[in-house]
Protein backbone atom coordinates (compact mmCIF):
# COMPACT_ATOMS: atom_id res chain seq x y z
CA UNK A 1 0.00 0.00 0.00
CA UNK A 2 2.80 2.30 1.02
CA UNK A 3 4.58 1.45 -2.24
CA UNK A 4 1.48 2.36 -4.27
CA UNK A 5 1.09 5.65 -2.39
CA UNK A 6 4.76 6.44 -2.84
CA UNK A 7 4.51 5.63 -6.54
CA UNK A 8 1.48 7.93 -6.95
CA UNK A 9 3.22 10.75 -5.06
CA UNK A 10 6.33 10.27 -7.15
CA UNK A 11 4.27 10.20 -10.34
CA UNK A 12 2.44 13.39 -9.33
CA UNK A 13 5.73 15.03 -8.41
CA UNK A 14 7.25 13.99 -11.72
CA UNK A 15 4.18 15.29 -13.59
CA UNK A 16 4.40 18.58 -11.73
CA UNK A 17 8.08 18.84 -12.52
CA UNK A 18 7.43 18.06 -16.16
CA UNK A 19 4.65 20.70 -16.30
CA UNK A 20 6.90 23.23 -14.65
CA UNK A 21 9.59 22.28 -17.09
CA UNK A 22 7.36 22.82 -20.09
CA UNK A 23 6.09 26.12 -18.68
CA UNK A 24 9.62 27.20 -17.98
CA UNK A 25 10.60 26.35 -21.55
CA UNK A 26 7.98 28.69 -22.99
CA UNK A 27 9.65 32.06 -23.47
CA UNK A 28 7.69 35.27 -23.99
CA UNK A 29 9.01 38.34 -25.76
CA UNK A 30 8.00 41.56 -27.44
CA UNK A 31 10.28 42.15 -30.39
CA UNK A 32 10.59 43.85 -33.77
CA UNK A 33 11.01 41.76 -36.92
CA UNK A 34 14.32 42.33 -38.70
CA UNK A 35 14.18 39.50 -41.21
CA UNK A 36 11.68 37.02 -42.61
CA UNK A 37 12.94 34.03 -44.59
CA UNK A 38 10.06 32.09 -46.04
CA UNK A 39 10.88 28.52 -47.05
CA UNK A 40 10.62 27.74 -50.76
CA UNK A 41 7.65 25.46 -50.16
CA UNK A 42 5.93 28.14 -48.03
CA UNK A 43 5.41 25.68 -45.20
CA UNK A 44 7.66 27.43 -42.70
CA UNK A 45 9.60 30.62 -42.11
CA UNK A 46 12.62 31.60 -40.09
CA UNK A 47 12.08 35.01 -38.52
CA UNK A 48 14.74 37.13 -36.88
CA UNK A 49 13.54 39.59 -34.26
CA UNK A 50 15.20 42.15 -32.04
CA UNK A 51 13.85 42.06 -28.51
CA UNK A 52 12.63 45.40 -27.21
CA UNK A 53 14.01 45.16 -23.70
CA UNK A 54 17.40 43.59 -24.28
CA UNK A 55 18.11 44.29 -27.96
CA UNK A 56 18.94 40.59 -28.19
CA UNK A 57 18.33 38.98 -31.57
CA UNK A 58 16.02 35.96 -31.52
CA UNK A 59 15.49 33.59 -34.42
CA UNK A 60 12.26 31.59 -34.40
CA UNK A 61 10.80 28.99 -36.68
CA UNK A 62 7.18 29.69 -37.62
CA UNK A 63 5.07 26.85 -38.97
CA UNK A 64 1.46 27.81 -38.27
CA UNK A 65 -0.58 28.56 -41.39
CA UNK A 66 -2.33 31.64 -39.99
CA UNK A 67 0.97 33.43 -39.47
CA UNK A 68 2.55 32.12 -42.67
CA UNK A 69 -0.42 33.50 -44.65
CA UNK A 70 0.23 36.89 -43.08
CA UNK A 71 3.88 36.75 -44.21
CA UNK A 72 2.84 35.77 -47.71
CA UNK A 73 0.38 38.62 -48.22
CA UNK A 74 2.50 41.12 -46.28
CA UNK A 75 0.11 41.66 -43.39
CA UNK A 76 3.17 41.03 -41.22
CA UNK A 77 6.37 42.58 -42.54
CA UNK A 78 9.86 43.58 -41.42
CA UNK A 79 9.58 46.41 -38.87
CA UNK A 80 6.38 45.12 -37.26
CA UNK A 81 6.39 44.69 -33.51
CA UNK A 82 5.40 41.19 -32.42
CA UNK A 83 4.29 39.65 -29.17
CA UNK A 84 5.57 36.09 -29.32
CA UNK A 85 5.99 32.90 -27.34
CA UNK A 86 8.41 30.16 -28.30
CA UNK A 87 9.86 26.95 -27.01
CA UNK A 88 13.35 25.55 -27.49
CA UNK A 89 13.11 22.16 -29.18
CA UNK A 90 16.20 20.36 -30.48
CA UNK A 91 18.15 23.60 -30.28
CA UNK A 92 15.59 25.53 -32.37
CA UNK A 93 13.21 28.23 -31.18
CA UNK A 94 9.79 27.02 -32.23
CA UNK A 95 7.09 29.71 -32.36
CA UNK A 96 3.98 28.96 -30.30
CA UNK A 97 2.31 32.37 -30.51
CA UNK A 98 3.12 35.09 -33.02
CA UNK A 99 0.91 38.16 -33.20
CA UNK A 100 1.31 41.85 -33.93
CA UNK A 101 1.33 43.92 -30.75
CA UNK A 102 -2.28 44.73 -29.89
CA UNK A 103 -3.26 48.34 -30.34
CA UNK A 104 -4.66 50.66 -32.95
Amino acid at each position, binding site marked *: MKKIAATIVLALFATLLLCQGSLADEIKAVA*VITKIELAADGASAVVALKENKTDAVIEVLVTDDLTLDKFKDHRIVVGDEIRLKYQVEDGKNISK*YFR*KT*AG*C
Partner: protein
Amino acid sequence: MKKSVKNPILASMAFAALALPLAAFAADDALQQKVDALTKEVETLKQQPGKFDWLTIGGDYRFRVDSLHATIADYYQFTGDPLAPAAMKEEDVKNDTLYTNRLGLNIKAKVTQDVNLTTRLLMYKSFGNSDASATSGTFFADRVGQFDGTQGHTPGDDKLLVDQAFITWSNIADEPIWFSVGRRPSTGGVPSHLRQNADKPGNGGIPSLMVDYAFDGMSLGYAPDIEALPGAYGKICYGRGFESGYEKDSDAGALNDMDMLGISLVPYETDPLYLNVQWNRGYDIIDAPVIADSAFGPMSPSVNLGSIDWFGVTTLSTLKNVGPGSLNFFVSGAASVTHPNDNLSGGMAGLMYNAGEEAESKYGWGAYAGARYDITSTRTKIGAEYNHGSKNWVAMDHASDDMWTGKLGARGDVYEVYLIQELDRKAIASYNARAFFRLGYQYYNFDYTGSSNWVGAPQKISELDDPMKQQLFAPVKNAQDLYATFEVRF
Protein backbone atom coordinates in the same frame (compact mmCIF):
# COMPACT_ATOMS: atom_id res chain seq x y z
CA MET B 1 75.56 40.19 -68.95
CA LYS B 2 73.01 39.94 -71.74
CA LYS B 3 72.43 36.41 -70.86
CA SER B 4 71.88 37.27 -67.26
CA VAL B 5 69.53 40.12 -68.29
CA LYS B 6 67.60 38.07 -70.85
CA ASN B 7 67.10 35.16 -68.56
CA PRO B 8 65.13 37.00 -65.88
CA ILE B 9 62.96 38.70 -68.56
CA LEU B 10 62.27 35.44 -70.27
CA ALA B 11 61.71 33.83 -66.93
CA SER B 12 59.33 36.60 -65.91
CA MET B 13 57.44 36.38 -69.20
CA ALA B 14 57.24 32.65 -68.91
CA PHE B 15 56.08 32.94 -65.31
CA ALA B 16 53.57 35.64 -66.22
CA ALA B 17 52.27 33.53 -69.10
CA LEU B 18 51.81 30.64 -66.76
CA ALA B 19 50.56 32.68 -63.82
CA LEU B 20 48.09 34.97 -65.67
CA PRO B 21 45.33 32.43 -66.12
CA LEU B 22 45.78 31.33 -62.53
CA ALA B 23 45.69 34.94 -61.34
CA ALA B 24 42.68 35.59 -63.53
CA PHE B 25 40.95 32.57 -62.04
CA ALA B 26 41.88 33.71 -58.55
CA ALA B 27 40.65 37.23 -59.31
CA ASP B 28 37.38 35.83 -60.68
CA ASP B 29 36.98 33.75 -57.59
CA ALA B 30 37.71 36.65 -55.25
CA LEU B 31 35.37 38.88 -57.25
CA GLN B 32 32.61 36.32 -57.07
CA GLN B 33 33.11 36.01 -53.34
CA LYS B 34 32.92 39.79 -53.02
CA VAL B 35 29.75 39.90 -55.13
CA ASP B 36 28.21 37.14 -53.03
CA ALA B 37 29.15 38.94 -49.82
CA LEU B 38 27.80 42.25 -51.11
CA THR B 39 24.57 40.62 -52.28
CA LYS B 40 24.13 39.06 -48.87
CA GLU B 41 24.89 42.40 -47.22
CA VAL B 42 22.38 44.24 -49.41
CA GLU B 43 19.73 41.62 -48.71
CA THR B 44 20.44 41.92 -44.98
CA LEU B 45 20.38 45.74 -45.17
CA LYS B 46 17.10 45.63 -47.07
CA GLN B 47 15.52 43.79 -44.20
CA GLN B 48 17.10 45.83 -41.44
CA PRO B 49 15.62 48.92 -39.87
CA GLY B 50 16.82 52.09 -41.57
CA LYS B 51 17.28 55.68 -40.48
CA PHE B 52 13.58 56.42 -40.90
CA ASP B 53 12.34 53.10 -39.63
CA TRP B 54 10.34 54.98 -36.99
CA LEU B 55 8.25 56.67 -39.66
CA THR B 56 5.78 55.08 -42.06
CA ILE B 57 4.20 57.17 -44.79
CA GLY B 58 1.39 55.99 -47.01
CA GLY B 59 -1.79 57.21 -48.57
CA ASP B 60 -4.28 57.05 -51.37
CA TYR B 61 -5.86 59.08 -54.12
CA ARG B 62 -9.22 58.52 -55.76
CA PHE B 63 -10.82 60.04 -58.81
CA ARG B 64 -14.51 59.24 -58.87
CA VAL B 65 -17.41 59.97 -61.18
CA ASP B 66 -20.99 59.51 -60.01
CA SER B 67 -24.16 59.61 -62.03
CA LEU B 68 -26.97 60.26 -59.55
CA HIS B 69 -30.70 59.90 -60.12
CA ALA B 70 -33.61 59.80 -57.66
CA THR B 71 -37.36 60.22 -57.44
CA ILE B 72 -39.06 62.29 -54.78
CA ALA B 73 -42.53 61.10 -53.74
CA ASP B 74 -45.72 63.21 -53.56
CA TYR B 75 -45.72 64.91 -50.16
CA TYR B 76 -46.53 68.01 -48.15
CA GLN B 77 -43.59 70.31 -47.46
CA PHE B 78 -43.28 71.83 -43.99
CA THR B 79 -43.06 75.59 -44.54
CA GLY B 80 -42.56 76.79 -40.99
CA ASP B 81 -46.29 77.11 -40.40
CA PRO B 82 -47.73 73.66 -39.55
CA LEU B 83 -51.14 74.87 -40.71
CA ALA B 84 -49.94 75.82 -44.17
CA PRO B 85 -47.84 73.00 -45.70
CA ALA B 86 -47.10 73.11 -49.43
CA ALA B 87 -48.34 70.27 -51.65
CA MET B 88 -45.42 68.87 -53.69
CA LYS B 89 -45.79 66.65 -56.73
CA GLU B 90 -43.57 63.66 -57.49
CA GLU B 91 -40.44 64.72 -59.34
CA ASP B 92 -37.03 63.46 -60.38
CA VAL B 93 -33.75 64.87 -59.20
CA LYS B 94 -30.40 64.12 -60.80
CA ASN B 95 -26.78 65.01 -61.29
CA ASP B 96 -25.61 63.25 -64.44
CA THR B 97 -21.90 63.72 -63.77
CA LEU B 98 -20.32 64.52 -60.44
CA TYR B 99 -16.53 64.31 -60.45
CA THR B 100 -14.60 64.20 -57.18
CA ASN B 101 -11.00 64.06 -55.95
CA ARG B 102 -10.09 62.44 -52.66
CA LEU B 103 -6.53 62.48 -51.33
CA GLY B 104 -5.47 60.70 -48.16
CA LEU B 105 -2.09 60.86 -46.43
CA ASN B 106 -1.22 58.43 -43.65
CA ILE B 107 1.68 59.04 -41.31
CA LYS B 108 2.60 56.73 -38.46
CA ALA B 109 5.42 57.52 -36.07
CA LYS B 110 6.98 55.15 -33.56
CA VAL B 111 7.61 57.82 -30.94
CA THR B 112 9.04 55.77 -28.11
CA GLN B 113 9.01 52.13 -27.22
CA ASP B 114 5.32 51.14 -26.92
CA VAL B 115 4.01 54.57 -27.95
CA ASN B 116 2.88 55.37 -31.51
CA LEU B 117 1.21 58.32 -33.17
CA THR B 118 -1.11 57.58 -36.08
CA THR B 119 -2.48 60.27 -38.37
CA ARG B 120 -4.60 60.35 -41.49
CA LEU B 121 -5.19 63.55 -43.43
CA LEU B 122 -7.99 63.80 -45.98
CA MET B 123 -8.95 66.18 -48.75
CA TYR B 124 -12.19 65.44 -50.59
CA LYS B 125 -13.68 67.88 -53.05
CA SER B 126 -15.81 67.91 -56.14
CA PHE B 127 -14.43 69.15 -59.45
CA GLY B 128 -15.21 72.81 -59.98
CA ASN B 129 -16.37 73.47 -56.43
CA SER B 130 -14.67 74.30 -53.17
CA ASP B 131 -17.47 73.77 -50.68
CA ALA B 132 -20.05 71.12 -49.82
CA SER B 133 -22.90 72.74 -51.76
CA ALA B 134 -22.63 70.47 -54.82
CA THR B 135 -23.32 67.35 -52.77
CA SER B 136 -25.60 68.81 -50.09
CA GLY B 137 -29.35 68.58 -50.48
CA THR B 138 -32.59 68.75 -48.55
CA PHE B 139 -33.18 64.99 -48.89
CA PHE B 140 -31.29 63.33 -46.04
CA ALA B 141 -30.12 64.55 -42.62
CA ASP B 142 -26.56 63.25 -43.11
CA ARG B 143 -26.11 65.08 -46.41
CA VAL B 144 -27.50 68.57 -45.70
CA GLY B 145 -23.93 69.79 -45.29
CA GLN B 146 -20.58 68.80 -43.91
CA PHE B 147 -20.13 68.56 -40.14
CA ASP B 148 -17.68 67.25 -37.56
CA GLY B 149 -18.74 63.61 -37.94
CA THR B 150 -18.51 63.61 -41.75
CA GLN B 151 -15.73 66.03 -42.64
CA GLY B 152 -13.23 64.45 -44.98
CA HIS B 153 -15.75 61.73 -45.80
CA THR B 154 -18.17 63.83 -47.85
CA PRO B 155 -17.01 66.29 -50.52
CA GLY B 156 -16.05 69.70 -49.17
CA ASP B 157 -13.20 72.04 -49.95
CA ASP B 158 -9.58 71.53 -51.00
CA LYS B 159 -8.07 71.63 -47.49
CA LEU B 160 -6.37 68.63 -45.93
CA LEU B 161 -8.42 67.85 -42.82
CA VAL B 162 -7.29 65.80 -39.86
CA ASP B 163 -9.37 62.67 -40.20
CA GLN B 164 -7.40 60.66 -37.65
CA ALA B 165 -4.80 61.65 -35.07
CA PHE B 166 -4.32 59.42 -32.07
CA ILE B 167 -1.68 58.19 -29.67
CA THR B 168 -1.55 54.50 -28.81
CA TRP B 169 0.24 53.19 -25.75
CA SER B 170 0.72 49.43 -26.11
CA ASN B 171 2.16 46.66 -23.94
CA ILE B 172 0.91 48.33 -20.77
CA ALA B 173 2.28 46.52 -17.71
CA ASP B 174 3.99 44.12 -20.13
CA GLU B 175 0.59 42.72 -21.00
CA PRO B 176 -1.30 42.86 -24.32
CA ILE B 177 -3.21 45.90 -23.11
CA TRP B 178 -3.43 49.19 -24.99
CA PHE B 179 -4.83 52.65 -24.46
CA SER B 180 -5.48 55.00 -27.32
CA VAL B 181 -6.78 58.58 -27.44
CA GLY B 182 -7.44 61.16 -30.15
CA ARG B 183 -9.46 61.46 -33.33
CA ARG B 184 -10.45 57.86 -33.87
CA PRO B 185 -10.32 55.30 -36.70
CA SER B 186 -14.11 54.97 -36.36
CA THR B 187 -14.94 55.07 -40.09
CA GLY B 188 -14.75 52.53 -42.92
CA GLY B 189 -15.03 49.53 -40.59
CA VAL B 190 -15.56 45.82 -41.28
CA PRO B 191 -16.99 44.71 -43.72
CA SER B 192 -17.25 47.94 -45.75
CA HIS B 193 -13.51 47.68 -46.53
CA LEU B 194 -14.31 44.94 -49.06
CA ARG B 195 -16.18 47.18 -51.49
CA GLN B 196 -13.51 49.87 -51.01
CA ASN B 197 -10.73 47.38 -51.86
CA ALA B 198 -9.06 48.50 -48.64
CA ASP B 199 -7.11 46.47 -46.08
CA LYS B 200 -9.15 45.02 -43.25
CA PRO B 201 -9.17 47.48 -40.33
CA GLY B 202 -7.15 46.40 -37.30
CA ASN B 203 -8.00 46.48 -33.61
CA GLY B 204 -9.18 50.08 -33.90
CA GLY B 205 -12.00 49.35 -36.33
CA ILE B 206 -15.72 49.34 -35.64
CA PRO B 207 -18.41 47.34 -37.53
CA SER B 208 -19.69 49.65 -40.26
CA LEU B 209 -23.37 48.77 -39.83
CA MET B 210 -23.41 50.38 -36.38
CA VAL B 211 -20.87 53.19 -36.56
CA ASP B 212 -19.29 54.99 -39.50
CA TYR B 213 -18.75 58.41 -37.98
CA ALA B 214 -15.62 60.47 -37.33
CA PHE B 215 -15.30 60.57 -33.53
CA ASP B 216 -12.89 62.11 -31.08
CA GLY B 217 -12.46 59.71 -28.20
CA MET B 218 -10.44 56.97 -26.58
CA SER B 219 -10.32 53.23 -26.10
CA LEU B 220 -8.86 50.70 -23.70
CA GLY B 221 -8.26 47.24 -25.11
CA TYR B 222 -7.01 43.81 -24.13
CA ALA B 223 -5.96 40.97 -26.42
CA PRO B 224 -5.54 37.83 -24.30
CA ASP B 225 -3.68 34.76 -25.54
CA ILE B 226 -6.33 32.05 -25.50
CA GLU B 227 -5.37 29.09 -27.63
CA ALA B 228 -8.99 28.17 -28.44
CA LEU B 229 -9.79 31.76 -29.44
CA PRO B 230 -7.11 32.91 -31.87
CA GLY B 231 -6.95 36.65 -32.42
CA ALA B 232 -9.38 37.41 -29.58
CA TYR B 233 -9.58 40.93 -28.20
CA GLY B 234 -11.97 43.28 -26.49
CA LYS B 235 -12.11 47.00 -25.95
CA ILE B 236 -14.09 49.74 -24.29
CA CYS B 237 -14.54 52.82 -26.46
CA TYR B 238 -15.66 56.32 -25.62
CA GLY B 239 -16.32 59.19 -28.00
CA ARG B 240 -17.61 62.74 -27.88
CA GLY B 241 -20.02 63.51 -30.69
CA PHE B 242 -20.82 67.08 -29.65
CA GLU B 243 -19.10 69.50 -27.27
CA SER B 244 -21.56 72.03 -25.86
CA GLY B 245 -18.97 74.51 -24.57
CA TYR B 246 -19.27 76.83 -21.60
CA GLU B 247 -22.32 76.71 -19.37
CA LYS B 248 -23.19 79.45 -16.88
CA ASP B 249 -25.05 78.72 -13.62
CA SER B 250 -27.85 80.92 -14.90
CA ASP B 251 -28.25 78.93 -18.13
CA ALA B 252 -31.52 77.08 -17.81
CA GLY B 253 -32.00 74.05 -20.07
CA ALA B 254 -28.56 74.35 -21.57
CA LEU B 255 -27.35 71.68 -23.96
CA ASN B 256 -25.37 68.73 -22.66
CA ASP B 257 -22.44 67.19 -24.50
CA MET B 258 -23.33 64.21 -26.70
CA ASP B 259 -21.21 61.18 -25.78
CA MET B 260 -20.87 57.62 -27.00
CA LEU B 261 -19.81 54.56 -25.01
CA GLY B 262 -19.22 51.14 -26.52
CA ILE B 263 -17.95 47.66 -25.75
CA SER B 264 -16.57 45.67 -28.63
CA LEU B 265 -15.67 41.99 -28.32
CA VAL B 266 -13.91 40.03 -31.04
CA PRO B 267 -13.76 36.50 -29.63
CA TYR B 268 -12.33 34.99 -32.82
CA GLU B 269 -10.29 36.53 -35.61
CA THR B 270 -8.78 34.38 -38.32
CA ASP B 271 -9.13 34.53 -42.11
CA PRO B 272 -11.89 31.90 -42.26
CA LEU B 273 -13.81 33.48 -39.37
CA TYR B 274 -14.01 36.96 -37.91
CA LEU B 275 -16.67 37.51 -35.28
CA ASN B 276 -17.58 40.78 -33.57
CA VAL B 277 -20.19 41.42 -30.89
CA GLN B 278 -20.80 45.02 -29.94
CA TRP B 279 -22.89 47.31 -27.75
CA ASN B 280 -22.95 51.09 -28.04
CA ARG B 281 -24.91 53.78 -26.27
CA GLY B 282 -25.27 57.34 -27.44
CA TYR B 283 -26.00 59.71 -24.55
CA ASP B 284 -27.72 63.09 -24.80
CA ILE B 285 -28.36 62.75 -28.51
CA ILE B 286 -28.63 66.17 -30.14
CA ASP B 287 -31.23 67.17 -32.72
CA ALA B 288 -28.77 68.57 -35.28
CA PRO B 289 -25.02 69.01 -35.70
CA VAL B 290 -23.26 72.34 -36.14
CA ILE B 291 -23.20 73.18 -39.87
CA ALA B 292 -22.28 76.71 -40.90
CA ASP B 293 -23.72 76.42 -44.39
CA SER B 294 -26.20 73.56 -44.70
CA ALA B 295 -28.79 73.27 -47.45
CA PHE B 296 -31.22 74.81 -44.91
CA GLY B 297 -28.79 77.58 -43.91
CA PRO B 298 -26.79 77.68 -40.65
CA MET B 299 -27.67 74.83 -38.29
CA SER B 300 -26.83 74.08 -34.68
CA PRO B 301 -28.24 71.81 -32.00
CA SER B 302 -31.06 73.17 -29.87
CA VAL B 303 -31.97 70.28 -27.53
CA ASN B 304 -30.86 66.89 -26.26
CA LEU B 305 -33.44 64.31 -27.23
CA GLY B 306 -32.49 61.25 -25.12
CA SER B 307 -30.26 58.25 -25.66
CA ILE B 308 -29.98 55.33 -28.08
CA ASP B 309 -28.67 51.79 -27.53
CA TRP B 310 -27.23 49.69 -30.31
CA PHE B 311 -26.51 45.95 -30.26
CA GLY B 312 -24.83 44.18 -33.14
CA VAL B 313 -23.11 41.06 -34.45
CA THR B 314 -20.82 40.91 -37.47
CA THR B 315 -19.20 37.90 -39.10
CA LEU B 316 -16.76 37.88 -41.99
CA SER B 317 -15.06 34.97 -43.71
CA THR B 318 -12.29 34.68 -46.29
CA LEU B 319 -11.90 31.29 -47.92
CA LYS B 320 -8.83 30.79 -50.07
CA ASN B 321 -8.51 28.58 -53.16
CA VAL B 322 -12.22 28.47 -53.95
CA GLY B 323 -11.96 27.81 -57.67
CA PRO B 324 -9.54 30.24 -59.31
CA GLY B 325 -9.59 32.69 -56.41
CA SER B 326 -10.73 33.62 -52.90
CA LEU B 327 -14.23 34.12 -51.57
CA ASN B 328 -15.06 36.78 -48.97
CA PHE B 329 -18.53 36.90 -47.48
CA PHE B 330 -20.19 38.56 -44.51
CA VAL B 331 -23.39 38.92 -42.53
CA SER B 332 -24.00 41.74 -40.09
CA GLY B 333 -27.06 42.50 -38.00
CA ALA B 334 -27.86 45.21 -35.47
CA ALA B 335 -30.71 46.62 -33.40
CA SER B 336 -31.33 50.19 -32.24
CA VAL B 337 -33.43 51.06 -29.20
CA THR B 338 -34.29 54.69 -28.46
CA HIS B 339 -34.89 56.16 -24.99
CA PRO B 340 -36.48 59.56 -25.64
CA ASN B 341 -37.01 62.35 -23.16
CA ASP B 342 -39.80 64.91 -23.52
CA ASN B 343 -37.74 67.45 -25.45
CA LEU B 344 -38.89 68.45 -28.91
CA SER B 345 -36.78 69.93 -31.67
CA GLY B 346 -38.42 73.17 -32.81
CA GLY B 347 -41.49 72.16 -30.84
CA MET B 348 -42.26 69.63 -33.60
CA ALA B 349 -40.33 66.40 -33.17
CA GLY B 350 -38.57 64.33 -30.51
CA LEU B 351 -36.37 61.25 -30.64
CA MET B 352 -38.23 59.14 -33.26
CA TYR B 353 -41.63 60.61 -32.38
CA ASN B 354 -43.65 63.67 -33.34
CA ALA B 355 -45.27 66.35 -31.18
CA GLY B 356 -48.56 65.06 -29.80
CA GLU B 357 -47.33 61.46 -29.69
CA GLU B 358 -46.14 59.62 -26.62
CA ALA B 359 -42.38 59.77 -26.02
CA GLU B 360 -41.90 56.02 -26.15
CA SER B 361 -38.95 53.77 -26.88
CA LYS B 362 -38.68 52.59 -30.50
CA TYR B 363 -36.99 49.41 -31.65
CA GLY B 364 -35.43 49.15 -35.09
CA TRP B 365 -33.14 46.74 -36.84
CA GLY B 366 -30.72 46.66 -39.74
CA ALA B 367 -29.15 43.79 -41.67
CA TYR B 368 -26.22 43.79 -44.08
CA ALA B 369 -24.92 40.88 -46.17
CA GLY B 370 -22.62 40.52 -49.12
CA ALA B 371 -19.80 38.71 -50.85
CA ARG B 372 -16.76 39.46 -52.97
CA TYR B 373 -14.96 36.98 -55.17
CA ASP B 374 -11.31 37.69 -55.98
CA ILE B 375 -9.89 36.09 -59.12
CA THR B 376 -6.19 35.74 -58.37
CA SER B 377 -4.77 35.44 -61.89
CA THR B 378 -6.53 38.49 -63.38
CA ARG B 379 -6.67 40.63 -60.20
CA THR B 380 -10.40 41.04 -60.73
CA LYS B 381 -12.80 41.34 -57.79
CA ILE B 382 -16.55 41.06 -58.18
CA GLY B 383 -18.87 41.95 -55.30
CA ALA B 384 -22.52 42.26 -54.37
CA GLU B 385 -24.11 43.67 -51.23
CA TYR B 386 -27.57 44.06 -49.80
CA ASN B 387 -28.83 45.85 -46.72
CA HIS B 388 -32.19 46.49 -45.16
CA GLY B 389 -33.29 48.87 -42.43
CA SER B 390 -36.62 48.61 -40.65
CA LYS B 391 -39.07 51.46 -40.01
CA ASN B 392 -37.37 52.58 -36.78
CA TRP B 393 -33.79 51.65 -37.67
CA VAL B 394 -31.28 54.36 -36.89
CA ALA B 395 -27.53 54.07 -37.45
CA MET B 396 -24.55 56.28 -36.61
CA ASP B 397 -23.36 55.96 -40.22
CA HIS B 398 -23.23 59.54 -41.40
CA ALA B 399 -19.64 59.30 -42.71
CA SER B 400 -20.38 56.35 -45.01
CA ASP B 401 -18.77 56.56 -48.42
CA ASP B 402 -22.09 56.96 -50.25
CA MET B 403 -23.24 60.02 -52.16
CA TRP B 404 -27.01 60.03 -51.59
CA THR B 405 -26.96 59.03 -47.92
CA GLY B 406 -25.15 56.46 -45.77
CA LYS B 407 -26.67 53.32 -47.30
CA LEU B 408 -26.50 51.36 -44.05
CA GLY B 409 -28.79 53.91 -42.38
CA ALA B 410 -31.51 53.48 -45.02
CA ARG B 411 -35.05 52.56 -43.95
CA GLY B 412 -35.71 50.23 -46.83
CA ASP B 413 -33.57 48.14 -49.16
CA VAL B 414 -30.26 48.95 -50.80
CA TYR B 415 -28.60 46.82 -53.46
CA GLU B 416 -25.05 47.31 -54.68
CA VAL B 417 -22.89 45.48 -57.21
CA TYR B 418 -19.32 46.38 -58.11
CA LEU B 419 -16.30 45.26 -60.05
CA ILE B 420 -12.72 46.06 -59.11
CA GLN B 421 -9.90 45.63 -61.61
CA GLU B 422 -6.39 46.01 -60.26
CA LEU B 423 -3.59 46.84 -62.68
CA ASP B 424 -1.07 44.04 -63.00
CA ARG B 425 1.90 46.14 -62.02
CA LYS B 426 4.70 45.48 -59.50
CA ALA B 427 4.20 47.31 -56.19
CA ILE B 428 6.88 49.96 -55.60
CA ALA B 429 5.76 52.38 -52.88
CA SER B 430 4.95 49.67 -50.34
CA TYR B 431 4.31 45.93 -50.18
CA ASN B 432 0.60 46.44 -50.73
CA ALA B 433 0.71 49.40 -53.13
CA ARG B 434 -1.86 49.05 -55.89
CA ALA B 435 -3.69 50.90 -58.62
CA PHE B 436 -7.19 49.89 -59.62
CA PHE B 437 -10.45 50.80 -61.29
CA ARG B 438 -13.82 50.30 -59.63
CA LEU B 439 -17.20 50.31 -61.32
CA GLY B 440 -20.34 50.06 -59.21
CA TYR B 441 -24.07 50.60 -59.05
CA GLN B 442 -26.28 51.30 -56.04
CA TYR B 443 -30.05 51.16 -55.92
CA TYR B 444 -31.94 52.48 -52.89
CA ASN B 445 -35.60 51.65 -52.36
CA PHE B 446 -36.85 53.61 -49.35
CA ASP B 447 -39.88 52.38 -47.40
CA TYR B 448 -39.98 55.06 -44.69
CA THR B 449 -38.91 58.65 -44.30
CA GLY B 450 -36.05 59.80 -42.12
CA SER B 451 -33.20 57.52 -43.16
CA SER B 452 -30.00 58.41 -41.25
CA ASN B 453 -32.07 60.69 -38.99
CA TRP B 454 -33.38 60.21 -35.46
CA VAL B 455 -35.53 63.33 -35.24
CA GLY B 456 -39.27 62.71 -35.68
CA ALA B 457 -41.40 59.68 -36.44
CA PRO B 458 -40.78 57.73 -39.65
CA GLN B 459 -43.69 57.79 -42.12
CA LYS B 460 -44.44 55.32 -44.89
CA ILE B 461 -43.33 57.04 -48.09
CA SER B 462 -46.28 55.68 -50.06
CA GLU B 463 -48.70 57.35 -47.59
CA LEU B 464 -47.53 60.96 -47.54
CA ASP B 465 -50.62 62.41 -49.25
CA ASP B 466 -51.79 63.79 -45.91
CA PRO B 467 -51.06 67.39 -44.79
CA MET B 468 -50.70 66.06 -41.25
CA LYS B 469 -47.62 64.11 -42.43
CA GLN B 470 -45.75 67.17 -43.70
CA GLN B 471 -42.01 66.72 -44.11
CA LEU B 472 -38.96 68.90 -43.61
CA PHE B 473 -36.81 66.70 -45.86
CA ALA B 474 -37.98 65.91 -49.40
CA PRO B 475 -38.87 62.18 -49.19
CA VAL B 476 -36.83 60.27 -51.74
CA LYS B 477 -38.59 57.02 -52.62
CA ASN B 478 -35.80 55.54 -54.72
CA ALA B 479 -32.29 56.57 -55.71
CA GLN B 480 -29.54 55.27 -57.97
CA ASP B 481 -25.83 55.90 -58.20
CA LEU B 482 -23.74 54.58 -61.07
CA TYR B 483 -20.12 55.25 -60.14
CA ALA B 484 -16.62 54.61 -61.43
CA THR B 485 -13.25 55.29 -59.82
CA PHE B 486 -9.56 55.21 -60.59
CA GLU B 487 -7.60 54.80 -57.37
CA VAL B 488 -4.14 54.27 -55.99
CA ARG B 489 -3.15 53.09 -52.51
CA PHE B 490 0.39 53.03 -51.24
